Each structure stands twice: as structure tokens, then as C-alpha cells.
């Protein structure tokens, strides 16, 4: 029983960050209808920026994470402005190819900048695990879980309680009316993409210290983000949150009870099964963002 709880807890840690990835992508894919294959690269960027801050420049860890999130958001804004805005009217195939191109360029840019050797990020948390009854958790992972939950809450508040969030939802529900009401569509698009990319960067910044940082780490992250979004239902904030947690737990249980080699397959299988049998997602009716 304790083993099961341990797996569940580990799964929640991962799941929290997957939820961040998923919320970010559901904003971009669900609201903006941009199939962003480069989403994983902002995750990678977040990890590398944290590495640069914490391990190279040796600044305060939290500061490094915050800077990484900001950096991811800014990079996202730049990409949207330069790359996606000009293609706004084109077919979805064109946008897909553009984001694929961006994916290749960003990843190989990372490869060139940092080299292919995996890096580890220095963090200030002590190593001995914190014991909570039958389960235990490394302080780092506890911090990651806490930070993820805070960020999820923050994103939720941003989308549902601020005027920016209202503007975002309005823009993507009915762009023409939103424009008529004075909302600057272009600015909202850029901001939405920035927030989505920032959340991806946050996931990378949080998971980076737990695992290693290497240029291709975003590939799996991107697919898992899609899995979460598909599972939770396109555009559904709560769905992405729940979906992310579910994916994390499913991966941990799969790795623990079935086989660790196939751990990453869980996300793939979810994508395939959900799209084939329940394309609207498991939670499609719950709390739509748009």
C-alpha cells in the first residue's frame, strides 16, 4: 500500500509539471488554434535558462527559475510576433510546417549553444528525503510540487479572474466582436502565446533540476503536452490540469508495475486511444477556457 502511495505521490510531482505544459498548450492549441510543435522547445529553453542562472551564474535558485519563466515568455512573444503573426490567415498545414521548422531551429540552436552533453542543474535543496507517514519525498520534488501548484493556481486566476484573461477568452471565442469592442487582437495573441510558452518554460525549469538537461528533452515533453491536452479536451483549463496529473500518475504506475522502459509510451498510447475512441477528451465539458 505504501508503495502505491509513493508512486501516486511521485506521479503528482510529475503530473503537476505536466499540467503546466498542458495548460500552456491548451491556451495555444485550444484558444489560438495553432498546432505548436515547438512547445517542447520552450520547455527546454526554461531548463537551460535555469541551468544558466543557477549553475553558471550561480544566482539564487528561485530567481533563476523566475527568470527562466520570464525568458520563456519573452521568447514565445518574439516567435509569435515574427513567425506566426504573418501566417495568421494561412491554412493549418502551413502553420504546422512553420512550427515544425521552429522546432528544428530552436532545438539545434540549443545543441549548438550548449553542446549535446547532458547538464545537471545545481539546486539549494537538501538531499535527505522528507518523511510524511508511509511515504517520503525529496525536498526538491516537494518544492517542485509546491511551485507547480502555485503556478497552476496563478494561471487559473489569470485566465478566469483578470481582465486580460477575459480578453483572451473573448478574442478566441469571437475575434470580430472582440475587435469591435476595442480589444487589440494582435496584442492578445502575442500575450497568449507568451503565457503558454512561459508555462512550458516553467515546467522545464522545475523538471530540469530533477532530471538532466539536454537539447532533445523537449521532444517527449511536447508529445506529453499534446497527450494532456487531448486527454483533457481542447481548450479546457481544468481538463489540462486534471489530465496532466493523471498522466503523471499513470506514468509512475506504469513504470513501477509494468516496465520502466515503456514509461514514455504511456503518453503515446493515451494520444492514440483517446483520439480514436473519445476525441473530445475525458473532461471536455468541465470548465472550458474559451
Amino acid at each position, binding site marked *: 500500500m505504501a508503495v502505491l502511495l509513493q508512486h501516486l505521490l511521485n506521479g503528482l510531482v510529475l503530473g503537476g509539471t505536466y499540467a503546466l505544459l498542458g495548460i500552456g498548450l491548451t491556451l495555444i492549441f485550444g484558444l489560438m488554434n495553432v498546432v505548436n510543435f515547438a512547445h517542447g522547445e520552450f520547455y527546454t529553453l526554461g531548463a537551460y535558462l535555469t541551468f544558466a542562472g543557477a549553475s553558471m551564474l550561480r544566482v539564487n535558485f528561485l530567481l533563476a527559475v523566475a527568470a527562466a519563466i520570464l525568458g520563456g515568455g519573452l521568447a514565445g512573444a518574439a516567435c509569435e510576433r515574427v513567425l506566426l503573426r504573418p501566417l495568421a490567415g494561412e491554412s493549418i498545414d502551413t502553420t*504546422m510546417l512553420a512550427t515544425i521548422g521552429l522546432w528544428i531551429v530552436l532545438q539545434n540552436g540549443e*545543441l549548438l549553444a550548449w553542446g549535446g552533453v547532458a547538464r545537471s542543474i545545481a539546486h539549494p535543496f537538501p538531499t535527505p528525503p522528507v518523511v510524511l507517514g508511509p511515504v517520503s519525498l525529496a525536498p526538491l520534488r516537494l518544492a517542485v510540487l509546491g511551485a507547480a501548484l502555485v503556478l497552476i493556481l496563478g494561471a487559473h486566476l489569470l485566465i478566469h479572474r483578470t481582465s486580460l484573461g477575459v480578453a483572451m477568452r473573448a478574442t478566441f471565442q469571437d475575434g470580430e466582436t472582440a475587435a469591435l469592442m476595442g480589444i487589440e487582437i494582435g496584442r492578445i495573441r502575442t500575450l497568449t502565446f507568451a503565457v503558454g510558452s512561459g508555462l512550458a518554460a516553467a515546467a522545464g525549469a522545475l523538471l530540469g533540476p530533477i532530471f538532466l538537461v539536454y537539447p532533445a528533452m523537449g521532444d517527449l515533453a511536447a508529445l506529453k503536452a499534446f497527450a494532456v491536452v487531448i486527454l483533457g479536451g481542447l481548450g479546457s483549463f481544468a481538463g489540462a490540469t486534471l489530465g496532466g496529473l493523471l498522466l503523471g500518475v499513470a506514468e509512475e504506475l506504469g513504470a513501477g508495475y509494468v516496465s520502466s522502459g515503456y514509461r514514455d509510451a504511456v*503518453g503515446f498510447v493515451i494520444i492514440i486511444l483517446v483520439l480514436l475512441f473519445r476525441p473530445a477528451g475525458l473532461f471536455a465539458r468541465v470548465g472550458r477556457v474559451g
Partner: protein
Amino acid sequence: MARAPRRPLRAALVLCLLAVPLWLPSPYHLHVLIMAGIFAILALSLNLLLGYAGLLSLGHAAFFGIGAYASALLALRFAWPFSAGFATAVAVAGGIGYLTGRLAIRLRGAYFVLVTLSFAGVVSLVSVNWMDLTNGPLGLPGVPAAELLGFAFATKRSVYYLVLAVAAGAYVLCARLVRSRIGRALIALRENEPLAASVGVDGTRYLSLATALSAALAGAAGSLYAHYTRFVSPEVFLFSYTLTMVVMVVAGGKGTLVGPVVGAVVFTVLPEVLRELVAWQWQMLLYGTFLLLTVFLLPQGVVPTLAAWRERR
């Protein structure tokens, strides 16, 4: 649409291709051309889906790999002759392609892409983890050379002709298909599906057919690859292969026949040329940049843009 080269031009091209080993005898050059030929087959296969049926598949390397593994395993474990192994690899890849097609047919656009990506991911993981079948990351060394009627294609020169023959065959088959009733059906489904249905075009049937044929061709390329490099490992499922194929088709000109072939040759030869000049890390970066440039500047691809330019003059 590009005008087909006229008879004498076509004959000259064929003679040129046949004579290549005479004026480019170095093994290195032949290797590059062999890989160009294998990629040409792959690009043609992806083009059937992307350029004609209008489906973007990012899992195509999976069928390449399935063909390679099937062919290699049949030769290594069961000592099947190459012709049987090749045919089976094509059939297996095609069959799996048909199944994925039938299942994914209801999904279009981004969702189809995601399913193909996921499928490729699962296949890749299986090849790494199912040690008993595939020998995992260690791969399968010692795959015998292709042979037909007692003749072994052991030299680069002989493999060049084999690949040339298969690539030419693939080109002819694709040409016949796209200019036929079935080709028109695929294009119709891509251009206006409800209208296509109203005149009796069965979307499920033809799209499954397209995915099956496309996968079969990719499997053929895989089989050739396995018996040429004599070694198969999970690296055949590398995503960079799929991306390379996509760039070849899109930059060359999807929806034309010549475009992907030109793209394949260019993007096989170019990295080799660049290798002298820049480090390999820049290669993929340049690919990505090239893809972006194509999307923005030459959305039709090189060949159709050249053809339109020629027609306007």
C-alpha cells in the same frame, strides 16, 4: 503543374543515371547517390500522403524502420532470400499502414499528425525494449547483402543499380497512380471532401489505400537500406529522418512527382557538400531554417515555383 520532360530529354536522363558509376566511380560518391535514391523513395511515399491525399504524417520513419527490421530479421533468423524478405517487408509495412489509415481516417489535420507521431514513438520504444525480437539498442549486425537469382549486390556499384531500379519503379508507380482515377479521388478528398463524397468518392477507402501504399513504399526503402548498410538499429526510427523527409517533400514541391525527388537529391547531396564547410550540428539547423524559408517564401516548393516561372516567361 510542371510539364513532363519530353522524350529525348527523358531518355538522356535515363542514360545519364545508368552511366553514373562510370564517371563517378568513387565509393563515397556512390554512397551518397544510393542514400539519395533511398530517400527519393521515402520522399515519394510521403508525398503520396502529404502532397496528394493532403495528410501530414510525422510518423513515416516508423514504416521505414518496420521495413528494415522485417527484412533484416527474415534474412538473419530464417535465412529467407532477399526477394521474399523484401516482398514481405513491403507487405508488412503496407498492412500496418493500412490499419493505421483505417483507424486514423476520421482524424484530420493536427490530430492525424499527433496519432502518427505517437505511433512512431511507440514503435521506436518497442524496438528499443523488445530485446528478444530486435536485440534492442545493440541492433542487428551482419544483415546479408541483397541478392537476386544468385547474384549478390555486395558492391556499392551493384547496390546503386538496385536502388536506381527500385526508385525508378516507385516513381513510375506513383506517376501512374496520381494520374489515375484513384489519384483524382485522393486529390478530390484533399480539395473538397463533401463534394468528393457527393460524386461517389469513398473517403475511408481511398485514404486507407493511400496510407497503405505510402507505408509499403517506405517499407521498401527500409528493406533496401537494411541490406545495404548491413546493420539495423533503433536509429532508423530517429525523428530526424522523418523531419528530413518532410523538408524534402515540402521544399521540393509537394503535390508534384518531380519535386520530392529533387528535394531528396538536394537534401542528401547538400549535407555532404556542407560537411566540408560546416560542422554537422549546423546541418539540422539549416534544414529547419530552410523549411521556414520555404513556408514563407516558396510555399509551393522549388519545382512548382520554377515551373510557374517558366510558364510565365
